[in-house]
């Protein structure tokens, strides 16, 4: 698991990370979102004991990043911003090198290398020099390297950035599988659709500070307020006589649709739907107004910039 407490990093006069508090348990995926230079990579580097925090603390896989750097590094798998592949090596040699780095015995190493290369579709190119690989193949190999020692914690920086849709899907499936095996995963990504699909928790970082964090639903609620539902009719229908259940607020109404804000959708929506049916409303659809992670992200960022502007 990953736990940080007031984690901060300052380079001379520049504050890269400022008082970050995160908690990611086993079998959870946390997505860290933010602009380039917001502090994501610095946070990951502190969590891999590459950088020493200037303030605060962090524990990764049960080890303190300041005191047990060696143990932290042995327990995490990292996909770095730069893949760091040795171009004159073959994929097989490269994986074997890292297998030895993590002290895997030869037979286990061989099996893992075969399985990972096979899974990522690199088995046929295993004996080719990495320099001859495409960008996507390199990305997959770097990811396979991060997994060779089956670490309990994975820190993945843009895991699908250079991949074709098929490979990206493969990687997403693998991340989901790893999650199901109780791994702790931290994901830095600009692909918000992917984050929506994978993440249990999302944190948005701006200029080193975490602006918001929580599950996607929590973020939506925090940023946009209560969920909103739209009822769409096949023809004009007068909804004036319709009594909304308590806890529902009418936001807008036209002849063919209306929008309500709902405090407890699970409880109130069935009541409203029953009333609509009783009133023989020509209902075509009743669905939550789409509020994507992208909207949440953009609103949070705009708000942060606005506050900054005011200040």
């Amino acid at each position: 698991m990953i736990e940080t407490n007031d984690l901060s990093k300052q380079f001379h006069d520049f504050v890269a990370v400022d008082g970050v508090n995160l908690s990611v348990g086993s079998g959870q995926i946390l997505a860290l979102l933010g602009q380039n230079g917001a502090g994501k990579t610095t946070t990951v580097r502190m969590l891999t004991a590459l950088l020493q925090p200037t303030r605060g603390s962090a524990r990764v896989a049960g080890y303190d990043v300041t005191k047990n750097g060696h143990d932290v590094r042995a327990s995490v798998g990292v996909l770095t911003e730069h893949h760091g592949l040795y171009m004159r090596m073959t994929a097989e040699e490269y994986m074997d090198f890292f297998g030895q780095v993590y002290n895997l015995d030869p037979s286990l190493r061989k099996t893992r290398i075969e399985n990972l290369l096979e899974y990522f579709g690199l088995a046929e190119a295993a004996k080719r020099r990495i320099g001859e690989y495409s960008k996507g193949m390199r990305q997959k190999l770097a990811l396979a390297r991060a997994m060779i020692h089956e670490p309990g914690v994975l820190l993945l920086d843009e895991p699908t950035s250079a991949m074709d849709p098929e490979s990206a899907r493969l990687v997403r499936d693998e991340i989901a599988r790893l999650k199901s095996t109780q791994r702790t995963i931290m994901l830095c990504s600009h692909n918000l659709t992917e984050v929506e699909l994978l993440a249990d928790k999302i944190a948005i970082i701006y200029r080193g500070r975490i602006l918001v964090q929580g599950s996607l639903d929590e973020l939506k609620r925090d940023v946009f307020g209560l969920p909103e539902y739209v009822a769409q009719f096949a023809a004009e229908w007068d909804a004036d006589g319709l009594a909304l259940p308590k806890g529902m607020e009418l936001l807008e109404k036209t002849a063919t649709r209306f929008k309500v804000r709902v405090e407890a959708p699970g409880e109130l929506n069935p009541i409203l739907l029953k009333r609509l049916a009783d009133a023989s409303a020509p209902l075509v659809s009743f669905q939550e107004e789409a509020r994507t992670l992208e909207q949440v992200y953009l609103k949070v960022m705009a708000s942060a910039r606005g506050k900054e502007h005011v200040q």
Partner: protein
Amino acid sequence: MFNKLRPVWLVARRELRDQFRDWRVLLPMLILTLCFPFLMNEFAKETVDYLNQFNANLVLERLVPISIMIIGFFPITVALVVALESFVGEKERGTIEPLLTAPFDDWQLYFGKLLVGAITPLIASYTSIGLYLWMIHRQGLTFPDGMVMLQLMLLTTAHAVVMVSAAIVISVQSTSVKAANLLASFIVIPVAILMQGEAVMLFWGNETVLWLGIAGVVIIAVLLIRVGIAHFEREYLLGREIDTLNLKWIARTFWRNFTGGAVSLWDWYRRAVMSSLRRIFSAFLIMVVVAAVSLWLSYDWVMVNVSDAVSRASPEALKKVEENIEELPEFSSMSGHLDASFLFLNNTRSMATILLAGLTSFGVLGVMIYMLNIGLIGGVYALFKLLGVSPLPIFLAGILPHGIFEIPALMIGSAAVLYIGAVIVTPQTGKSMGEVILEMMADWAKLFVGVVVPLLAVAALIEAYVTPVLLLRVLGGGMR
């Protein structure tokens, strides 16, 4: 222990494999290994033919070891290329981060790189030497004896380690391969000077001196390795600093450390200078001990060797010396040449020399110059004794008055240089090597300006205006 060393070999082996796939490393190494013994052999043949005309057998005998040292050195130059880009090259290629996130200790990574930097060039170097020896054997030239060969092999190995460890220090501290290559002259020039010195030692043929030389090179190698490990920082390697000379930052850092935040001259002395004096206290004590040792050594050496030489000298030689002494000007007429500003500038220059020499050798050469300066007193004292003149009154009149100021100044300045060397080889968490050197330079400058210069100025005034008067009184103007 094996488990601790395993990662070292792992890092080295991977890079070795990489090296042997890179023709840009292999080709020069092969050329240097295979061609230079032939070239050197041809040169040696021509030299032999030439020198045989003069029956200069001794020169020929000494030429072979020097040739072996040079031949062994050429392939080692490749080590520089490999080692210079060991860390900074990986940083530029973006391969450093996965390596740094691996569960290696700093020293394991460091020694892995050191090993790979030295191993291939050394193999090439030994091969080259072997090839040359085979050629010598075929020509029937005199083979160096076993001890000299052992010394040559040790020297070659030490050269490789010195160059690789220095290159790695540069590689760890550089922000680009280009910058590292530019800084390489700081390795090439001192090593070239070092080899000239070693060539002189080989020509001299004094085994003991050569052993001392080898010991010196090994100490430098060990110190360089220590510096490399002390300043190895994963954080710095991942930094994004660019190669811009930040003069503002340099000036600010220096000034901040020089002034120590003082608000007045008195405050500066009280806070900044005193704290620097406290910091160098241990080094100062070492300087006191070193002074005592050098005084005794030079006194003893003169008493033993000079009296021995005088007793063995021919009457003609002694007469010649006497004639030379006769030719010296009267002491009273000499005093006019030694004005205070000359003395002050001369002593200041000595202090600057100690600093420069110390900076290039972790303080060691600086201390050696200091020893020489202090040692002279012991030697001169012994000479007076041998001449049958009571040295004590001369020393009380000729050295003590200005020495009270000059010797502590010399001790403080040299102690500060030794302290710089000690700090450079000590881990300084969170600071780049440049930062550490700037802080140390500011510390030295503080002591130089605040303590050494005033003491030297007072000493120069006394030496110019008081010491000659006292000496004339003691010697009565008759001593040449």
